[in-house]
């Protein structure tokens, strides 16, 4: 057992860190929040493509690098440190993995090189008007149609929908209120019948409501088998979730550094506040949680790459990383006293995101249910 990064992983981390330091300042993030129509920067996306990042997990035969989720996690943690706004997660992880593992040969050949080259950006249409993340709650219908399928209904929280070229839409084609009876469609963002509406969030990111009014897609737009969309989506979603955890862990580490630095510099009662045991206790507790979340994320990514049964571990990773990022952003902000809540303060970029990260891609209740299924309803798989 050896938990040191490999030479290659260290280089990747350094390269990502240097790039992000240079290109993704807090000012840049604020500009994306306030001035961008799409919420991310297309020039930066092109640079991601040039550096090969978008093809990291795409098989080499489709122009990718054929690397693992563990490598990806090392990279995306650096993006998280800078709360870098980009559709990386949905495009280079979710779509890339979904198409590579469940796409038809035609889809793989036609679509994967476009991801690697940075030509096609994907967004995920999954969540609907519900408190819950479980696939049972999906109601958007896809009905058989002379030209394929016709989609009707609404998706919420489709991140970067306006900047995307293709929407991955999870639609109900069969049995109601079940994870069976769902199918996946790749829908051209510019199809007629699609309209979008921005959903304002605390993060000032770009989430959209996407309404589908009889949007007709060809049968070839389906990924995976009819009514078995969840079986295709779940493993890809798990990889995206682990990557997202790496991103939120990175954000947590960065926030923690700022809070620690402030605790060393801020003088009250004639001494730096970081000298007080209460402040030390907060900062120590948070860094312990971050180390734990980070190790769990790396461990789970490693096990995914080994193709082991990781459903319970993904769920534990998400449940804990989510709780951690929420906690770090909340308590970390309080270290700054009143300044922690001033718009001009850069750490508010983190505070505004923490809770939202916690709730994204399945909140605590969803992932705790998955853990319960894995440890109570079946014989738990223990990876050591």
């Amino acid at each position, binding site marked *: 057992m050896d938990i040191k990064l490999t030479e290659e992983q260290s280089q990747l981390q350094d390269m990502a860190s240097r790039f992000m330091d240079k290109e993704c300042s807090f000012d840049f993030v604020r500009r994306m929040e306030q001035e961008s129509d799409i919420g991310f920067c297309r020039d930066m996306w092109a640079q991601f493509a040039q550096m090969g990042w978008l093809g990291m997990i795409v098989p080499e035969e489709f122009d990718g690098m054929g690397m693992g989720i563990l490598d990806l996690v090392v990279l995306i943690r650096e993006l998280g440190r800078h709360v870098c706004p980009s559709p990386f997660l949905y495009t280079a992880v979710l779509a890339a993995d979904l198409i590579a593992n469940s796409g038809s040969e035609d889809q793989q050949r036609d679509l994967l090189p476009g991801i690697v080259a940075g030509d096609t950006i994907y967004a995920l249409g999954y969540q609907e008007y519900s408190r819950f993340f479980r696939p049972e709650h999906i109601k958007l219908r896809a009905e058989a149609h002379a030209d394929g399928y016709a989609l009707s209904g609404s998706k919420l929280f489709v991140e970067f929908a306006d900047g995307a070229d293709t929407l991955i839409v999870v639609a109900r084609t069969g049995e109601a209120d079940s994870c069976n009876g769902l199918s996946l469609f790749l829908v051209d963002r510019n199809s007629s019948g699609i309209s979008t509406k921005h959903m304002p969030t605390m993060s000032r990111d770009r989430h959209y409501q996407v309404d589908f009014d009889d949007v007709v897609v060809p049968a070839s737009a389906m990924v995976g088998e009819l009514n078995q969309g969840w079986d295709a989506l779940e493993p890809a979603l798990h990889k995206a979730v682990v990557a997202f955890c790496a991103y939120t862990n990175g954000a947590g580490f960065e926030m923690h550094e700022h809070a620690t630095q402030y605790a060393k510099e801020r003088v009250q009662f004639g001494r730096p506040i970081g000298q007080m045991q209460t402040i*030390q206790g907060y900062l120590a507790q948070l860094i312990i949680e971050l180390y734990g979340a980070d*190790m769990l994320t790396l461990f789970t990514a490693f096990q995914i790459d080994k193709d082991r049964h990781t459903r319970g571990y993904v769920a534990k990773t998400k449940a804990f990383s989510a709780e951690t990022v929420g906690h770090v952003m909340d308590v970390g902000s309080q270290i700054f006293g009143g300044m922690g809540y001033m718009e001009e303060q850069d750490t508010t970029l983190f505070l505004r995101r923490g809770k939202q990260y916690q709730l994204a891609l399945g909140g605590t209740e969803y992932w705790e249910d998955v853990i*319960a299924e894995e440890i109570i309803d079946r014989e738990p798989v223990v990876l050591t």
Partner: protein
Amino acid sequence: MDFDWSPAEIAFREEVRAFIAEELTEDVAGSIFIDTPARIEFVTKMADRGWLGMGFPEEYGGSATPVPLAPFILNAELDRAGAPIIGKNVGTIASTIYHVASEEMKKDFLPKIFRNEGQWAITYTEPNAGTDLGSMQCRAVDKGDHFEVSGMKHFITSAHFCRWHWMALRTDPDAPKHKGISIFIVDHDTPGLSLSRMDTLGREGTTHRTNQVFFDKMKIPRSRLVGEQNKGFYYMMQALDYERFAILSFASRVRRFDNIVGWFRRADLNGERPAQDPHTRRSLARMAARVEVGTMLERLAICRAQEAVPDVEASMNKVWGASIGDEFAQLALDLLGPLGGLWGGEHSPFDGALADEYLMAGHARVAAGGVDTSKSIVARRLLGLPNALGKPELPQR
């Protein structure tokens, strides 16, 4: 990065598991202490295999380490099985003797420790020197060829079955408090040393006791001074870094939590199935994630230990392990409703053991350098925050 155990590591783990399957009888299991003839025999069998002196030179009775992680694999397996572990005798006392003691003392005591020839008590704590060990007052007065001691210590856990005390005493009352303490090896049967029992919480026979130790003009030969006079505080601090890690394996907590989950999976209370109750399920699920984090932090400390003393990681382990133990001891009782208060009897899951655990769960947070002290270690050594005097106490990583 490779989280898998190597074939050699797996082979050693299998060897340990086979040993445990063969030797861990009912009268051995259930305690980490080496306090009964059966437990002493169990540990001596490990000593016969060379497992106590792993990594120490042969001239002191040590043996080669079959794989670098072997000591941690061994302790994790022992702890998981509820067996006595390779604890303070090796982790604190042998380590310190090896690093600081005279050649004569090394040749005398290290082989005895590695052969399990007698048990040890760590005799530091006083009523007015707990977390703040530097404030200890019990004097060892230098009389030339010996030191004379009068006074007392308490919370001396293994004193009622030990052969030797690893004892810290004040040797210079005029020096700054951290610079006037020395460590001694004291025979338990030295004239002038006596014991008084202190009972910890728990039902008779289910838990262990601790002790007060009294000294009345007790004489310690100068030859039993460990290392340099007045350097004792620094030896204790170094050893605590090893101890937090060596003595605190997370595996037993995983086992206890798995047992709790197992009970809730199977339980049927007059037709009510806890396994189907959403609140019970989510509570156990949340705790499962937190328990997994403990395993991860332990893994981090183990890997760090390959390169350096894992002082920060050991403290992280201490904080998380003790906190989680407390959390799930509480949770288990919460989920049982009124049954949680039972201290034995037919309706009590695990015959009252959950209540025993609950009562002592907070103790794990305060023992061996409490959780809050450990957090300050993390804050100062990892994060570089200043200590109470405004200076970083130790070089930051």
